[in-house]
């Protein structure tokens, strides 16, 4: 119980920061605003590190649990309850650290953002960032469906305003598209959540999982209809899946992403790529796999297939871009296709690789967006044709960029490789997936090299194309820029060279989840076979009765 306070603390620290920000006089203390926001995000980061340090790798279940009853309703004879229930396990631990790691970076890179200077409203800006952090942490920590849904929806609001107010030219279109797209998926999920809660008699995730474990065919047997029909389970699975697929985004639900990314301010892009998209993949692991293990197995080839299509499609369309930010945005589709492939390989290598790749993608693609942002501050363009010879003009920056670009394309020794390698190991060893999934996935790895190298070649190599109105300070890296890039580099090398700590953290949880899915699927098959036999017997008896009746 007491250890769970740490989780709550991490969760609500950004909210405290949000509260403090409201009392800062934005006219007099413009500087104070950013420092307060940065301070709170860094403190949150350190507390999340404490959480990680105290995390017991051997324990596959939820840790640092805290639970208060939030509401309970009497519906008919059943008591339905929903709790404030936070906890951390191996699958969410790394994502929580990732969130608190990316947030200070997002705040710090905003310190000198020209768009903020132009359009002002810093107080709103930093408040929204902290609000966003709070909501994202909630998504990763909450173990109750209703409360989860609340946090899930809250994440939309700050991002909507971040894009809509501080974005580029077509920001309103992008913001509305982002909002409506995600919202339409969430509505489906809400309906499914209500159904699930009603059927299980509770919204508390571990309790529901216990019921699913007892009877994996639970969803098809609600309302006393013990039929072998799989429609209800599939529909529920589909409702959750579409909500998450839009967020990830899985092909073909991805078209909001490039617009949102291109229009968002740098910090928005970094957080969007770094954390928000992970909510989708995390949701797939946490909800689809845990609530619908049997359906997950059944749909695994389909979803992994979408993932693979996304890998190749995203890479290819990324290669075709002339806009550097769009190129990076589409690369996300490709990378997250890998994560989806890993998750639906449904074995521990795949799942661990996918979880690590979520972190990797947050770091590498977040890093790439930082690079684009830093370039944009100087050249004020996103067209690749307007860049050239940046390596020469900014040698240090060019070197750092090369490392981040290579990490994104999965060069061994850097983080991306470890994730991709493990995912490929998972998918090739998966009993649910055909070899062609791996084959096509590797084609994606090849294509990754083409677009990353294209980007690097056009922007960093070749003839110098100086920034407009360049003076001697233009090519200087500001300390904030260096301060955000160095942690990214550190993470890239750490995961690339010594990923043991990360695999240890998620290992036992991933293994437990995989075993749970396998067992549930077997039980589900047995149960379905029984029900079919039963109904066949029923039909026979009916026939027999009818026969005897005549």
């Amino acid at each position, binding site marked *: 119980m007491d250890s769970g306070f740490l989780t709550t603390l991490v969760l609500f620290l950004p909210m405290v920061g949000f509260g403090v920000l409201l009392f800062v006089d934005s006219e007099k203390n413009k500087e104070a605003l950013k420092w307060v926001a940065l301070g709170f995000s860094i403190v949150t980061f350190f507390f999340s590190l404490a959480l990680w340090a105290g995390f017991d790798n051997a324990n596959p279940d939820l840790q640092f649990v805290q639970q208060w009853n939030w509401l309970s309703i009497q519906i008919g004879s059943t008591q339905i309850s929903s709790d404030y229930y936070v906890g951390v396990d191996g699958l969410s631990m790394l994502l929580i650290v990732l969130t608190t790691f990316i947030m200070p970076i997002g705040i710090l890179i905003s310190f000198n953002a020209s768009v903020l200077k132009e359009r002002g409203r810093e107080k709103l800006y930093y408040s929204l960032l902290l609000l966003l952090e709070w909501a994202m942490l909630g998504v990763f920590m909450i173990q109750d469906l209703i409360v989860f849904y609340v946090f899930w929806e809250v994440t939309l609001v700050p991002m909507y305003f971040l894009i809509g107010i501080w974005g580029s030219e077509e920001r309103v279109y992008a913001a509305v598209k982002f909002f409506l797209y995600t919202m339409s998926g969430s509505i489906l999920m809400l309906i499914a959540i209500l159904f699930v809660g009603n059927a299980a008699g509770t919204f508390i995730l571990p309790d529901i999982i216990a019921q699913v474990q007892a009877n994996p065919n639970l969803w098809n047997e609600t309302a006393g209809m013990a039929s072998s029909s799989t429609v209800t389970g599939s529909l529920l699975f589909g409702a959750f899946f579409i909500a998450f697929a839009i967020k990830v985004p899985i092909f073909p639900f991805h078209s909001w992403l490039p617009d949102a990314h291109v229009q968002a301010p740098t910090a928005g892009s970094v957080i969007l790529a770094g954390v928000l998209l992970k909510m989708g993949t995390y949701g797939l692991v946490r909800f689809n796999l845990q609530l619908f293990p049997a359906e997950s197995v059944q749909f695994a080839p389909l979803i992994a297939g979408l993932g693979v299509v996304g890998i190749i499609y995203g890479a290819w369309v990324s*290669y075709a871009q002339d806009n550097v930010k769009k190129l990076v945005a589409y690369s996300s589709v490709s990378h997250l296709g890998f994560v989806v492939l890993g998750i639906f390989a449904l074995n521990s290598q795949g799942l661990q690789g996918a979880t690590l790749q979520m972190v990797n993608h947050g770091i590498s693609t977040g890093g790439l967006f930082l690079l684009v942002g830093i370039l944009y501050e100087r050249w004020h363009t996103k067209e690749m044709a307007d860049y050239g010879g940046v390596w020469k003009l900014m040698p240090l920056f060019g070197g750092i960029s090369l490392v981040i670009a290579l990490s994104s394309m999965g060069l061994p020794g850097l983080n991306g490789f470890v994730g991709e390698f493990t995912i490929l190991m998972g998918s090739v060893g998966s009993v649910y997936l055909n070899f062609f999934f791996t084959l096509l996935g590797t084609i994606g790895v090849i294509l990754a090299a083409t677009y990353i190298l294209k980007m690097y070649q056009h922007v960093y190599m070749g003839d110098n194309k100086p920034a407009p109105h360049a003076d001697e300070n233009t090519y200087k890296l500001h300390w904030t820029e260096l301060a955000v890039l160095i942690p990214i580099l550190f993470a890239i090398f750490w995961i690339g060279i010594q990923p043991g700590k990360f695999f240890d953290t998620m290992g036992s949880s991933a293994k437990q989840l995989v075993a749970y899915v396998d067992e549930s699927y077997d039980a589900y098959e047995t149960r379905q076979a029984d029900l079919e036999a039963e109904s066949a017997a029923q039909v026979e008896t009916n026939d027999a009765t009818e026969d005897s009746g005549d």
Partner: protein
Amino acid sequence: MLFDLFGQAFSDKNLMPWLVPFWPLAGFALISLLTLLLQFLQRDFTKPLHTIPATDHNYGGHHPDYDGMDVPYQPFWFRITAIVIGMTAMTLTLFFAWSLVFGALDDFGAGTFGKIPSAEQAVEEEQAAEPEHGATSDCEDCVYQSNIEWMSLGESSETGFRIGTLVDPLTSIMLFMVPIAAGMIFVYSIGYMWHDPRQARFFALICLFAGGMLTLVVADNLMLMFVGWEIMGLCSYSLIGFWYEKESAYNAAVKAFTVTRVADVIMLLGIVYLWSLTGTLNFRDILYNTETLQMLGNTKAILFGSWGLSASGLIGMLVITGTVGKSAQFPLHVWLPDAMEGPTPVSAMIHAAAMVSAGVYAVIRMYPLYVGLSNPHAADPTFSAPLLYMAIAGSFTALFAATMGTAQRDVKAVLAYSTISQLGFMIAALGIGAYIAAAFHLITHAFFKALLFMSSGSVIHAMEHGEHHVHEHHAHAHNRQGHDDHHHDEHGHDEEHFDAQDMFNMGGLRHRIPVTFWTFLIGGLSLSGFPLLTAGFWSKDEILADAWNGTTVHGSGLHMMVFWVLALAAFLTAFYTMRQLGLTFWGDARTEEAEHAGLGGPYSIVSVAMQAPLIVLAFFAIVAGFIGVPPDFPILGSIFSPEHNFFHNLVVYTLPAMANGGAEVFHVEAPPVRFFPVFMSVLVALGGLFVGWLMYWRKPLKAGQADPLIRIVGENVYTTLQRRYYMDDLYDWLFVRPFRWVGINVIKLIDKGFIDGVLHKIAAIFIWIGDFIKTLNAWLIDGVGDGIPKAIFGFGGWMRRTQSGRVQQYLLIVLLAMIAIGILFALSAGALAIG
């Protein structure tokens, strides 16, 4: 704990292999950090370095690669420090690598080193019958090895993914060759890069390159090997594109990286497939384990399995693709000729010490996997799919590249094609089971090819020097103003661009750079396989002997094909080498530049640093052959191999004893010396050299004279050869353009046109529905809402009209109403009566 291990590594030979790649990698890190430190010392951490023109005195005053550019200023101490760090790292590596090699020979002894106890039991009788050579020792696993857990994977917590190091005979010969060749390249680089503004970057990257290669060499599993493999891919990218301002340089860099990356990823697919079948990637767990190999050989492959491909066959084909990319075999050879865009030491590194050797090394390392259940040495030889592929692709590449080599103008291009061709020899040898001959040729080739590349670099350097001299001369003669704004003008004479690498601009260089001439000659003769004296002869001869042995003993057609194709390729090799030597060094200078070529005096640092390594490598290019002289070779055999062929006896225990088809696969005796293959290898070498001499030495070319080869083969063939059989254009049309076209026209259309189109349609429908509802609202809801009061109002108005105040009207209405009611009652009553 880490520090303890680090300390132990100095004394414990099982841990020492970690140190071998450690030093260059640390050197890379140190130089990189130093660059940061330098910026810090310049008082502004975040600012780019103070720049000066590349033609500044600090950089030797002349730089064809930096025409009219500004480059960062690097103080002298900094440049020296980078060199010192690089050299120290390489020296330490050399020390530890060689102490491992000689330690192993001392501890285990050739003939025992690398033997696997478990496998030995299988062939115990065989061993009992045949007494051991060399020292016998009671080692358990006669290798140096250690490993640590890298990440926890697998279903149980015990079986984590482990990485480690392994030193077995194959590793040890690489540990002998790589550090010394790389070390010489480092020394040479001091001279070659002496005036280069990016010297520190160069040394950092080349350290990383050596580190990557050594990681690959000492790795005990495929994953770590792949890491080294890819680090080299990266280094080749950044070093080929070292002068990244040049379009040709960055295009070559991207090409090299992309082509090898395609191959690497396919290799990665093979690796993960192997892992899925065996659950481990450790070499000794998989490849040295007969049972696992049997299992892999008997498993049907997941692809083409129905066509009879075994799992080991498929893995072999996939992993070989990686080798085909890295070792530049047909059809993925296209990147290597372009790779000369980098500084010449890099070419030496890529073509000799690292990179391309890595491909062949990887094949030998995993050789049992490729052989599978076949046996090319059996009485009735069988070839698995990978072997067949290697034999055909290797021999084809050997010949194919050799033909292209005959028509090149660029001094480095000739060598580039010869590398492809020589690697074809090795791959072909591997295809017919002659893995020891391949390993032998790998080592000798590394020495003489490194020598040749560095010699050609020294030629180019000398030519650039000559160009500078001539240019200065002209500048002084014509106008002296160019000196003031060297930014734009000094080298802006594109109209008379001089190619310092074109052999037709050279001639007579033997007088200008005699040391280079002699070393180039030794390297060239070794490449041609000049009989008895040179290393190239012995290794090439062994490949041919193996091929001929298969042909005569087993009557195998594949062996025969390999033999004749390689013999022809060897002939062409000797020919183009002689052509190159003749064009470069013989006759008289054909240009003014060649007349003034030089390395800045015999005792200048550039001259010494660039020529001393040549002498060392020339030594190895001769003596490296003597470790593998067949014992039954007349006279020389009894001198160099009194007991047994040292190289053969050492390397043969790299692989396990394994009997496929009733005969031993890997522990085979070297073929006996036969007259015909020796005669052939002497004949092709001398014949090729003679033809070359006839065409290019007897009557050296005059300035402006066309290549006599054109007269013989005709203009069209010559051009085709020069244009590399149009392979680049073919690939461009076949892959690059369609990929780009589909990307831009189809995929973008799907994304923006279709998916977003559908979304916008949905949005439009919603808007339309919204509009519809709005209209409906206006008509119906509002209509009803407003209509009811309106209707009431209207009704009221109408009602008001009835209230006319006329009594007659009222009465009339009452009357009518009464009648109506009466009729209703009557009807209902009547109706009732009827019912």
